[in-house]
């Protein structure tokens, strides 16, 4: 079997059949784990969106639903964060990773029962945790609000994923490890370690705050980001059909991320009552993050250059490139934001909320959408039901997050400068944020519509509803041969009636 070193390189003609065959076998092995994780994740995405809307509209209607303790802003808002982080993006990340892992190691996914058990435990954990927060059992530590009992499910669930991944790695047929494997391998090590570290009962007072932001930022950078980058590194070259721009750069990007990112999180406490060296260290490393970000940006964007017309057709490419561009933006913004002056202005404002959504949504979530659009037809042996709905999903979420980010960034900067001016009364500042918060509610509604459309499309493809749509889903009719290298001419790597020869 040829190495999958450059996923974008088309197999030569003689190998074409063998190539399709092993992919079909490997894809099929991931079917139920991928479906379990992706469907669960999407359910949490919808629940998390509804919680977000409740939280957001409460700024327009502060006296709405105030008699129900479980619907108060201070409970709904962390419930939103936790369902999105631990439910949606973590589970989507595992689903996408499981498929990538098997594909890139050219091996049937091992320990599938462990992954199915993991998905069940994971769902239970997030469910217990979310109900816990709403019922008043929040631990009130940002990003770790869910009560301990929720993690009694989630930690074993993560360890089951690790066990399955290591077993698959052990049995691999690929000799070369593509850069995506590096990111995924590191993330499945980092994720459980981070969660276990923050659950240790050793923190209180200020040291708890530094540990808290070490954790929260690393969940984003070392657990959510790596699968996003791994997917971008896989799908951009794959769909475009050319190798990644520079192989050597990708290693540099990996190691600099691994070494720098995990020091950066405490910049949330710049100017706070923490030892000065802690804040300084995090500013230094936040600035150094420019290196891995530029490296990844060069690799992703230069791979796309010259092939922009393909964004017109491929849903996967469009979502993933949107996400990759957002990664560059959010990371450079993050480096800038850690500097003392800009932190002085923007910290404690809606600017930070915009920034975190640029990361978790415009980057990680959009890439997850793109990856799922590619993966699901291959594991379900079905096609997406409607290109119009896929397009609606793209535009509602793309425009939604665009408006969301723009409004809260502008509103947050205004809020920040006003807070620096003691002559502006606090309630005037509150008043001036209100228009921007209306935009947030509207754009959040737009994104939620997109999520409902996506959930509907996912239900259709998983349940194989209706007639099997003809060929792959593209936004527009594709010129002959554009995507032939990914089975885009209709042959796919899954078993289709015409290719159904082997048992």
């Amino acid at each position, binding site marked *: 079997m040829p190495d999958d070193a450059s996923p974008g390189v088309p197999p030569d003609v003689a190998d074409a059949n063998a190539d399709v065959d092993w992919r079909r076998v490997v894809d099929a092995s991931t079917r139920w784990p991928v479906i379990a994780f992706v469907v669960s994740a999407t359910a949490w995405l919808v629940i998390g969106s509804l919680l977000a809307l409740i939280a957001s509209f409460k700024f327009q209607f502060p006296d709405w639903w105030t008699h129900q303790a479980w619907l*108060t802003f201070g409970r709904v808002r962390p419930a939103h964060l936790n369902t999105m982080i631990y439910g949606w993006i973590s589970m989507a990340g595992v689903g996408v990773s499981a498929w990538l892992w098997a594909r890139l190691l050219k091996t049937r996914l091992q320990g599938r029962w462990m992954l199915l058990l993991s998905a069940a435990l994971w769902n239970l954990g997030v469910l217990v945790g979310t109900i816990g927060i709403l019922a008043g059992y*929040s631990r009130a530590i940002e990003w770790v609000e869910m009560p301990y009992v929720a993690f009694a499910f989630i930690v074993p669930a993560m360890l089951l994923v690790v066990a399955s991944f290591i077993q698959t790695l052990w049995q691999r047929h690929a000799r070369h490890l593509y850069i995506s494997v590096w990111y995924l391998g590191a993330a499945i090590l980092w994720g459980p370690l981070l969660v276990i570290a923050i659950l240790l009962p050793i923190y209180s007072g*200020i040291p708890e705050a530094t540990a808290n932001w070490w954790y929260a930022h690393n969940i984003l950078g070392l657990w959510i980001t790596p699968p996003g980058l791994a997917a971008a590194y896989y799908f951009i070259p794959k769909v475009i059909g050319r190798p990644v721009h520079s192989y050597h750069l990708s290693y540099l990007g990996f190691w600099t991320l691994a070494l720098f990112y995990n020091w950066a999180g405490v910049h949330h406490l710049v100017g*706070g009552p*923490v030892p000065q060296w802690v804040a300084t260290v995090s500013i230094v490393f936040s600035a150094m993050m420019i290196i891995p970000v530029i490296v990844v940006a060069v690799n992703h964007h230069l791979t796309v250059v010259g092939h922009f017309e393909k964004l017109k057709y491929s849903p996967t490419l469009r979502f993933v490139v949107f996400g990759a561009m957002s990664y560059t933006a959010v990371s450079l913004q993050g480096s800038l934001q850690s500097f003392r002056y800009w932190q002085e202005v923007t910290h404690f404002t809606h600017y930070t909320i915009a920034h975190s959504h640029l990361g978790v949504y415009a980057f990680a979530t959009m890439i997850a959408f793109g990856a799922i659009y590619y993966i699901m037809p291959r594991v379900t042996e079905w096609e997406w039901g409607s290109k119009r709905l896929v397009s609606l999903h793209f535009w509602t979420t793309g425009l939604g997050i665009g408006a969301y980010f723009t409004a809260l960034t502008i509103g947050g900067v205004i809020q920040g400068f006003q807070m620096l001016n003691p002559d502006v009364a*606090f309630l005037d500042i509150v008043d001036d944020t*209100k228009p921007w918060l209306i935009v947030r509610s509207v754009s959040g509604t737009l994104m939620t519509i997109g999520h409902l459309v996506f959930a509907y499309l996912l239900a259709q493809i998983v349940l194989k509803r209706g007639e099997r749509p003809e060929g792959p889903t593209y936004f527009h009719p594709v010129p002959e041969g554009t995507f032939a290298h990914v089975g885009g001419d209709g042959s796919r790597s899954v078993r289709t009636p015409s290719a159904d020869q082997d048992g």
Partner: protein
Amino acid sequence: MTRIALIFLGAFAAIAMSFTALALLPRMQLSTIEPTPGTTDYTYDEQLGREVYLREGCIYCHSQQVRPEGFGADIRRGWGGRGSRPGDYVFDETHQLGTMRTGPDLHDIASRQPSRDWHLAHLYQPRSVSPGSVMPAYPYLFEVKKKSNVMASEVTVPLSPEYAPPGDSVVVATEEALALYDYLMTLELEPLNDGGAQDAAN
């Protein structure tokens, strides 16, 4: 194999280093700090109130960290006479430093607004004392009862007619609302006697 070992070991070493530095070292460094003047352990009621504060997610809109002189305008806003210090938090089992100021900082709220009537009215209906506020109301921390059923030990919340319940009913604070007030009154930054030397040392 060696390459895989290298990836895993490198990834592990990276995270182990930053964990040691950012999570464990501050703990060792600050393990011996003294509480600042006026910082005492919580009483039963204050602790109960703190649990209400945690449970209702006050942290998502209110920070508890006054920025020092020269960084931000907290002191000039009257949010505290000095910047917050690690010694202010030694009894905080769950830190509530916060990252958002949709509402004002609360680390010195007891000096700024000590009135129990104000706080209870504000919790019952923020807009009754802060017009234009977007803070949620917390009616479930209060009971509406007939005036004749109010016991002498209970605390009635004074409200402007616009927000008061109709007829001969009044709003009475529950134990939780009173405890929350007690907790808020622990949030006070007393002056230090070192003349701000620690600010520089920090």
